């Protein structure tokens, strides 16, 4: 039977913020914002340092997709596992990894989180169960089934979260893993970050089915999509999936619809041959960071002074990370052979 609400109650209901059912404190909401901002500023600075040749090789920025990583990772517990792909700086920061270790890794220094041996695509922190970035598209997806299997076997209630891009969903091993996860009822959540382009190839040119999450229907797996430009929606969708994984050990496949504002890597322009300037500008209107800031300001959860203070604080953190990376020593030559085997 429907609950009958009085006029007063209805008004109160309508005025409730959209996250009122999620049990998020104001401090958490502010923290969501702050983490997204840290990623944005960190990545902007990484681009600058790349331009100065302090960072070499390949470097894929997370700018534009911050709401996905922050919302999803905020839905986890500390003992949950995370796997990332090659666009992994943002995930590492969202998990609370030290920006100094991440920047130093980008600089190829021995103080980096992978001792300078990995680079941009190999962020890692065992103490945070952050099981790494992986540079082969889709190649890490089965590892997530493995940790999920391991924790279930060991009687723990940890959940594994696995990020990958939509291009990875065309790899055979993605399908192998979804089948395995569904068959073995593994506590794993697959989060596909659909930013519309696999390098320069649009979804429409690469996928027979454009609703990427529907690929999980072949495995009768719980599935859905969410607005990846909205940190609350990201949190909501992933939290629900994580709870299901934890309580009933069932996998979920989620598609985050998002967009990257920079090129695929540092070597290609923001727009050009595969997407237009107009398209990028249009997408920037849904930038997850100002969008969320406005909402928090409007709701009185954040003040402009607090935003300004936060900017200053993050600027200092990023400066410190760059300074640390710059001043850190190079990995010594004898180091090369040290860790090939245990």
């Amino acid at each position, binding site marked *: 039977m429907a609950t009958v609400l009085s006029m007063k109650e209805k008004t109160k209901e309508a005025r409730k913020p959209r996250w009122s059912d999620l049990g998020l404190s104001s401090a958490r909401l502010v923290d969501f914002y702050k983490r997204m901002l840290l990623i944005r500023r960190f990545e902007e600075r990484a681009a600058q340092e790349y331009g100065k040749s302090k960072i070499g090789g390949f470097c894929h920025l997370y700018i534009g997709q911050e709401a996905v990583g922050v919302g999803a990772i905020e839905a986890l517990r500390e003992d949950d596992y995370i796997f990332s792909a090659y666009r992994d700086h943002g995930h590492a920061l969202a998990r609370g990894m030290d920006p100094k270790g991440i920047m130093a890794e980008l600089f190829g220094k021995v103080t980096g989180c992978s001792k300078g041996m990995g680079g941009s695509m190999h962020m*890692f922190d*065992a103490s945070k169960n952050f099981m790494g970035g*992986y540079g082969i598209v889709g190649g890490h997806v*089965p590892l997530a089934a*493995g940790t999920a299997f*391991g924790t279930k076997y*060991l009687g723990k209630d940890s959940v594994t979260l696995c990020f990958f891009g939509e291009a990875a969903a065309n790899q055979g*091993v993605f399908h192998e893993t979804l089948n395995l996860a569904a068959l073995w009822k593994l506590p794993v959540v697959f989060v596909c970050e659909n930013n519309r382009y696999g390098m320069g190839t649009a979804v429409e040119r690469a996928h027979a089915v454009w609703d990427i999450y529907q690929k999980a229907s072949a495995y009768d797996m719980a599935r859905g999509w969410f607005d990846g430009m909205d940190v609350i929606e990201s949190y909501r969708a992933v939290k629900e999936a994580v709870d299901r994984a934890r309580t009933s050990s069932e996998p979920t496949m989620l598609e985050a619809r998002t967009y990257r504002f920079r090129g695929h890597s540092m070597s290609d322009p923001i727009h050009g041959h595969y997407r237009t300037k107009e398209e990028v500008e249009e997408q920037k209107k849904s930038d997850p960071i100002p969008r969320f800031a406005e909402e928090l300001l409007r709701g009185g959860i954040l003040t402009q002074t607090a935003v300004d203070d936060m900017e200053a604080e993050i600027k200092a953190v990023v400066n410190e990370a760059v300074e640390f990376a710059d001043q850190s020593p190079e990995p010594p030559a004898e180091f090369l052979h040290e860790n090939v085997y245990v």
Partner: protein
Amino acid sequence: MAFLTYIEAISKGMWEEMERDSSVFLLGEDIGEFGGAFKATQGFLQHFGEDRVIDTVLAESAILGASVGAALAGMKPVAEMQFSDFVTCGFNQLVNNAATTHYRWNIPVPMVVRLPSGAGIHGGPFHSRNPEAWFFHQPGLKIVVPSTPYDAKGLIKAAIRDPNPVLYFEHKRLYRHVKGEVPDDDYVVEIGKADVKREGTDISVITYGGTTHQTLEAAELLRQENDMSVEVLDLRSLVPLDKDAILSSVRKTGKVLIVHEDNLTGGIGAEVAALIAEFAFQNLDAPIKRLAALDTPTPYSPTSEEFFLPNKEKIVNALKELARY
């Protein structure tokens, strides 16, 4: 002490390790109810239960990738590739994910991949390979290739206890054709140690896996018929390679034949030959000689397969040639 076949020794080693350590579990295609394509895991499901003896889907990449992940979560997976040829489908998981994890992050990936390999069973091009050289080139993986039941048990136990990813190549032809004494006690064969299977003074043969037995037969024949003294060094481990054992045998005899069942070009023999040329050149009384399978896919036709593979007669002829030099 028991008298076991090669495959029984592998099974016994796995059984003992599963009894010893509850984080050890088996996964692979048809290893549970079916007992394994070659019956290496027969009876395991009934004893250890389906949580620890897992029939997987037919998906090598997922099997190997899930093994890496399980190892990261504190488990010790022993994955079976039904035939070593099928490891091709999971190549990335081994050479990129398993092999480089400790190098990048200093965390161990304790996993074992069992790879039933080898020709001589008329399996044709896709069920006869000896793909060890593909992985030999990848730092971060260990590779063992037992030839006897004693080594088979000792090396599977060592592999399971090793904190690194270990590829365990087991020759299909040896499964039921080779029998030997296997102690009942809890012993391991140290990974990285070659074994002199026959002492000799005239010529060294360096070999491993299936061709070890053909080499031993050839050596015995040459002793009886030609009074030749052939030393047979069984590498047992390819990574790490026992360089000291190789060089000391060559320094003793001054002549060397390298035999393996894999194709000749770019095979393990090429590396062993380079090692000898580099570090024992002064000790050589003859050019290094190699004998291996032809550089072609493995043919099905039994007569063609015989022509393709090294065998006792070919080894005898090669050794006679070397002796004449």
